[in-house]
Structure formats: structure tokens, C-alpha cells
């Protein structure tokens, strides 16, 4: 394996990507900033002195992605077609999880842009909150996945904090979530599938579903995010209210729908 940013004399070298074919590239990076529970509460209640922390951090992350080539010496400047940054407030871990997605049609990968976006979004969160908390720590900035390009796709599958069971229920118990205001379905992704789509639970408004069956639910999810296209895989199994179901099975208000890979117990 050779480092492409070094030439044969070991000198730094910007790779000529002119001969590479343009393909659709996408990268997802994540990171988190750990803070005191009181700081997290101020942040989620919007009571920090510097105002809307999340909105500011989102803009900062998007701007940073666009300017990655100015920061990282051998990065090309790229015309990104999409940058999106998501923040998830994790009360249990007392942290904000940051995820950045960058996309373009081009000749070079966008993982540096996604990583830069996450880093700068985290730094902005630090800046916005530092008046009340100086112990904050930025942690686990990492590439989650990368698609497109000659070196093939990458998917991080080793997650350090793997939940032992899915959902909040203790063994043998099924917890009921809070009731939705409008008709909805609760969707769960289990095991390997959860890691591939990067989310364990989603509540979906039934009005967003083109037809009230599993096929319609899959269509609505794929529309929402291309990562959910994996649900079309024939190996993906499905249960409605914990009973196995197929594509034509009906779904109704408050149903719990779980998608999961073939089972491997015993």
C-alpha cells in the first residue's frame, strides 16, 4: 500500500485526478462533544448566552466543508453538491453527537470534507458553550462510510458502544413509547442493519407513507434517505408488532415495525 500524497522521493504531492472518471461520491463522518449534563440542558433549552448553538454550529460545519482545501494542504477544492450536518443530543452520554454527510459528482473522495465539517461543528459547539463549561471534550471524530471511487466503498462496522439489546425494554418486556400526536409508525433497525443505516429508531408519520403496508413504508424511508435502500435487499426481514411480516402486510397507527438481517442465534 502506497501513500498517494507522497511521490517516489517521499515529497508531498498533490495527486493529479484529471484522468479519474467522475463518479458520485459520498462520505459520512461523525464525532461528539462531551459536556456537563447542566451544559447540555442549557443547550437543548436554548438558554446559552450566545444564542442558537445548534444552528450556528451547522452553518459553521457547512462552511468548513466548502473550505477544506484551504485548511488541508493537499486537498483539492471541490464543488460539493450537498453538505448536511445532523446533531443528536444524547442525554445518557451527556454529549452532542455530530454527523456530517458530503456528496459530489467528481474525481476525488469527500471524506476530508465530512471530517472537517464534523471537527469545525464540534469546535463551534465548544466556542458557543465555553462560557459555562470548560471541561468539554471533543471525541471520536471518525469516518463512518464512504461510497464511490476506485478504491471501493468503506463502511465502519466496529462501533465501540454496541448496545446489547435493541430498545429500552428489559428482557421479556416491551416498552411502549409516548403516543404520537398524529397517526404514526415506530420503525426499528436491528443488529447489522442498524449499523448500516446508522439509526436504531425512527418515528414516521403515516401520512408520509404512500401506501399503508410494508412496501409503502420502505418506499417512504428510501425517499427520506438513500441509506434505507438497503431495505429492498431480499435478505432483509421485517416484523410488525413482533410478528414476521412481508411487503404486502398492512400497517396501522402506533404499529412497531422492525427491520433486521437473517438471524444467527443458537
Amino acid at each position, binding site marked *: 500500500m502506497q501513500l498517494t500524497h507522497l511521490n517516489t522521493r517521499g515529497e508531498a504531492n498533490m495527486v493529479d485526478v484529471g484522468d479519474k472518471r467522475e463518479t458520485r461520491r459520498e462520505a459520512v463522518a461523525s464525532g461528539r462533544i462531551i459536556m456537563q449534563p447542566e451544559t447540555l440542558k442549557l443547550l437543548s433549552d436554548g438558554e446559552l448566552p450566545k444564542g442558537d448553538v445548534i444552528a450556528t454550529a451547522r452553518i459553521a460545519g457547512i462552511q468548513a466543508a466548502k473550505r477544506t482545501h484551504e485548511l488541508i494542504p493537499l486537498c483539492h477544492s471541490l464543488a460539493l453538491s450537498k453538505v448536511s450536518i445532523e446533531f443528536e443530543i444524547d442525554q445518557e452520554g451527556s454529549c452532542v453527537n455530530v454527523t456530517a454527510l458530503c456528496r459530489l459528482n467528481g474525481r476525488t473522495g469527500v471524506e476530508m470534507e465530512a471530517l472537517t465539517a464534523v471537527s469545525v461543528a464540534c469546535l463551534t459547539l465548544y466556542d458557543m458553550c465555553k462560557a459555562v463549561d470548560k471541561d468539554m471534550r471533543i471525541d471520536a471524530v471518525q469516518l463512518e462510510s464512504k461510497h464511490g471511487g476506485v478504491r471501493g466503498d468503506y463502511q465502519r*462496522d*466496529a462501533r465501540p458502544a*454496541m*448496545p*446489547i*439489546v*435493541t*430498545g429500552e*425494554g*428489559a*428482557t*421479556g*418486556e*416491551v416498552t411502549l413509547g409516548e403516543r404520537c400526536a398524529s397517526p404514526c409508525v415506530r420503525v*426499528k433497525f*436491528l*443488529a*447489522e442493519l442498524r*449499523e448500516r443505516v446508522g439509526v436504531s429508531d425512527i418515528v414516521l408519520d403515516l401520512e408520509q407513507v404512500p401506501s399503508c403496508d410494508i412496501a409503502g413504508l420502505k418506499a417512504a424511508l428510501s425517499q427520506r434517505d438513500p441509506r434505507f435502500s438497503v431495505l429492498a435487499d431480499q435478505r432483509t426481514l421485517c*416484523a410488525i408488532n*413482533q*410478528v414476521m411480516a412481508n411487503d404486502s402486510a398492512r400497517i396501522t397507527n402506533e404499529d412497531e415495525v*422492525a427491520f*433486521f*438481517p*437473517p*438471524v*444467527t*442465534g*443458537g
Partner: protein
Amino acid sequence: MNIRVYVQATPFALADGYEQVLAQRTDIGAVVSFTGLVRDFNETPDVTGLTLEHYPGMTERTLESIGEQAWQRWSLQAVYIVHRVGYLTPGDPIVRVLVASAHRREAFEACDFIMDFLKTQAPFWKKEHSGQGEYWVKERTTDTQDAARWT
């Protein structure tokens, strides 16, 4: 129906199930039990442990339903199923299926049947940890073929 199902993170003893099934009974003529253990080689030759995930609620119902199907099919006196979840290391018991009946054939067959369906229907997933990293265990076509023997 005397069917007991346990899904638990705590280890179970090698003799688990016998006492529970045999206590105060003299009508049982045969007990067959199967125990599945964590091997230190599977998809890689150096498995250091595995994490078992499951779908709480559906797991128990599926195991009960498999026990009930066995109960309908053979003349049984007790079915006892324990399956562990969470982090396990090589040598740890993962699963115990214990079946009691008046005569051995029923117990042998029902135990075999329950394991085949547990492997292919109960919502458990194994993630193996090895020197080369972590990965989800792939399903095996032989397990599906084994379960198809009963239909």
C-alpha cells in the same frame, strides 16, 4: 403445556434445567438436552468473544411458539429453553434446550426440532470479536436446510 423460556444476560450452570424439569416427577422416562457453546474459531480462527443482540419481546414469543409447535408434534412432558444475550467468551454456554418425555425418541427429535427452528427463526444476532476486528456473523444455508427437514 409445560414450556419454560428464559432469555438472560447472566450465565447458566451446566446442570441448568434438569432440576427444574425433574423436580417432584417420576413419570419422566427420558431427558435430552442440547448445549451450544462459544467456539474460539468460526469465520476467523481467533475469535476472542461475541456479543449477542436480540429483539426483546419477540425473542421470548418466538421461543415459546417453537416450544408449542414441538409440544403439538411429539408427546412431551417438559420443554426448557435458556438463551444468553450480551458479551460471551469462548467456552461459555450460549443456549440450552432440554426436552423431557416418557420415551427417548420423542425427546431426541423434539430437541433437534427446537434447535433447528431456534437457529433460523429466533431474533438473535451474533457479532464476533477477533484479532482482525469485529464483524456480524453470516447466516448459514445449512441451518435453513436443517429446518426444512421438518416440513
